[in-house]
């Protein structure tokens, strides 16, 4: 089972403490004010990747399934949204919906094949299938190969709100981000999430209790694909392009790194991890260090020494944090 060592069991977090609620509200407040100080585009990018990592974590941290092919949903949705905006010229909300729909569909297809296997097999099957999707994207004319789909306008939300302005866009992305995180949190801390954890712990036993485990896994997989797709769609809307980098398996590896670095199996972990990786990438870009090597080394160090991830380590070290 791949879980942070002090995995936050569903039971632990059953009751949300008033202090937590205050903290969450405070964070939302900060999110609203943040563009005053920080570059909104960077913030939005962070939110896209944080959402992507959270979607991934929904599957790994709570479903125990390591997908090595999540780039397919992220990048696939980005392509569809970009295409919808550029060629069909539909409203951004519909473009995002189409993107998410595509990710859900793709998730269903890949999921149906992948959930037949577990653990390592699952990882390898998702990797191979997403690589197949990558080749499809590479060769399909509508993606424009190496160039990608570029240079379209963001359009008007509901035909009214112009998203060209990055502050407007920021609040839209932030709203989607917060709503999605809440949805993920809700899914994890729901009766469904409880069964999901049970399936992860002991599949045979869950079957004998009458749960069709394949459906639970598939359900989690498709939901995760959907949120990953939403992240990809938002990213396409933000940057106004969709390219091969987002469907490449390196992206699948990166999202794993983000989640692992931040801490598996908690809501905050992937967000922190995504923030760190994106900042690291931006920082390394002008530092003169070889990026791949640094990422590889980070990966190794995390796996060997900080498996709990940053959030996990913090919780472990600061016992006051996890008031019983």
């Amino acid at each position: 089972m791949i879980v942070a060592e002090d995995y936050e069991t569903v039971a632990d977090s059953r009751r949300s403490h008033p202090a937590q609620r205050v903290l969450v509200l405070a964070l939302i407040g900060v999110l609203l004010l943040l563009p005053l100080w920080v570059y909104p585009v960077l913030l939005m990018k962070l939110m896209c990747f944080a959402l992507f990592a959270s979607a991934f974590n929904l599957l790994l941290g709570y479903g125990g399934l390591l997908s090595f092919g999540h780039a397919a949903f992220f990048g696939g949705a980005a392509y569809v949204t970009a295409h919808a905006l550029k060629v069909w010229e539909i409203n951004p909300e519909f473009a995002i919906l189409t993107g998410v729909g595509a990710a859900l569909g793709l998730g269903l297809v890949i999921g149906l094949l992948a959930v037949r296997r577990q653990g390592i097999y699952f990882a390898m099957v998702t990797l191979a299938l997403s690589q197949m999707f990558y080749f499809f994207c590479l060769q399909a004319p509508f993606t424009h190969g190496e160039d990608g789909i570029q240079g379209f306008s963001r359009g008007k939300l509901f035909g009214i709100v112009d998203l060209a302005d990055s502050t407007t866009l920021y609040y839209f992305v932030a709203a989607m981000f917060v709503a999605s995180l809440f949805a993920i949190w809700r899914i994890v801390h729901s009766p469904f999430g409880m069964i999901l954890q049970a399936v992860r712990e002991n599949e045979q036993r869950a079957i004998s209790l009458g749960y069709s485990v394949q459906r639970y896994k598939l359900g989690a997989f498709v939901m995760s694909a959907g949120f990953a797709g939403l992240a990809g769609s938002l990213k396409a809307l933000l940057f106004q392009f969709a390219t091969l980098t987002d469907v490449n398996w390196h992206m699948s590896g990166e999202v794993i790194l983000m989640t692992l670095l931040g801490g598996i199996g908690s809501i905050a972990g992937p967000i922190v991890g995504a923030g760190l990786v994106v900042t690291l990438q931006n920082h390394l870009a002008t530092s003169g260090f070889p990026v791949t090597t640094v990422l590889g080394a980070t990966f190794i160090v995390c796996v060997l020494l900080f498996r709990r991830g940053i959030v996990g380590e913090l919780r472990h070290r600061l016992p006051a944090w996890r008031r019983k």
Partner: protein
Amino acid sequence: EPYRLGVLTDMSGMNFDLSGKGSEVAARMAVEDFGGTLLGEDVEVIVGDHQNKPDVGSTLARRWIDEENVVAIVDLPTSSVALAVQEITRQSDTALLISTGGSSELTGASCSPSTAQWTWDTYALANGTGRAMTLEGDKNWFFLTVDYTFGHALEADTTAAVEAAGGSIVGKVTHPRETSDFSSYLLQAQASGADVIALANSSGDTMTALKQAEEFGITAAGQDIAGMLLFLTDVHGVGLEIAQNLTLTTAFYWDMDDDTRAWSQRFAERMDGKMPTMVHAGVYSAVLNYLKAAEASGQATSGSQVMETMRGMDIDDFFNRNAYLRKDGRVVHDMYLVQVKTPEESKGPWDYYKVLRTIPGDEAFRSVEQSACPLLDD
């Protein structure tokens, strides 16, 4: 605050050799040669590694422009990143000096008034090689095309050039990108009896194909091989043993005359003896000419105005022969059809090409009529 030039390149990926560090060095050389100041302010070169990721590239470009007083962004390997950054520089009216980025789209439908595509584009290489080789007598062509937009574009451009010059296409086969084994394709190419086997693909694929062509004794059996997109570093990578007799088009070769040799020697001294590729020379030339034009236009904040000034300037130098900047951002200059020397002909490291013929710029590059750039309409 000093004016900054941002070299946005690939410091960790597949374009590292052909652009990467060398582009940085070339840009610095240009700034030094210009005197280090522009309009009374210092000029600084900063470098960014976009890791071939458009989002990293465009975030960085935005930050440079908004916060670091970057007045020109230079180099831009990887077409998806180049296109993404071009959108940003178009909005902020920042100068964009593309040397490694070779997508024809940059000066086609996506063209921007503040961009100059300095060195090459896929059209020029395909067209140059196709036309020149057909004129040299290689009439029947067989394509080995990488199966995505880039490869299809290369193939289409070459085909047009070959047919215009009186040649014909006898067959083609498409292969997936990053194929590790070309033998089936090569055998088909061999069986076709074509005069030329054209490799409409890029670096990794091209080199593997070359290596395996040698293994199957294809060139030895009399067929020529043409690389549609190859850099000096690629030839260095496979070695002369394998690349010998290969024909290709380039914008620059270091060993053409005293000027090119002199500059290249200076470059090599700073690069552990590595000779410059065409994009390195292009970066140097682009930066130097940009600085001249900015000085002349009396300002550096508007990229499109600098470009406008440059259009009126004489931009000939050791790199650019018969050169001018077109409205769509294309720098038109002479290109060269070269053949790779055999190991016996080569006198030492980096002595790789012999120049077969010069391709005049107007013949090499896409004409104004063929371009889809809206800026050309008015």
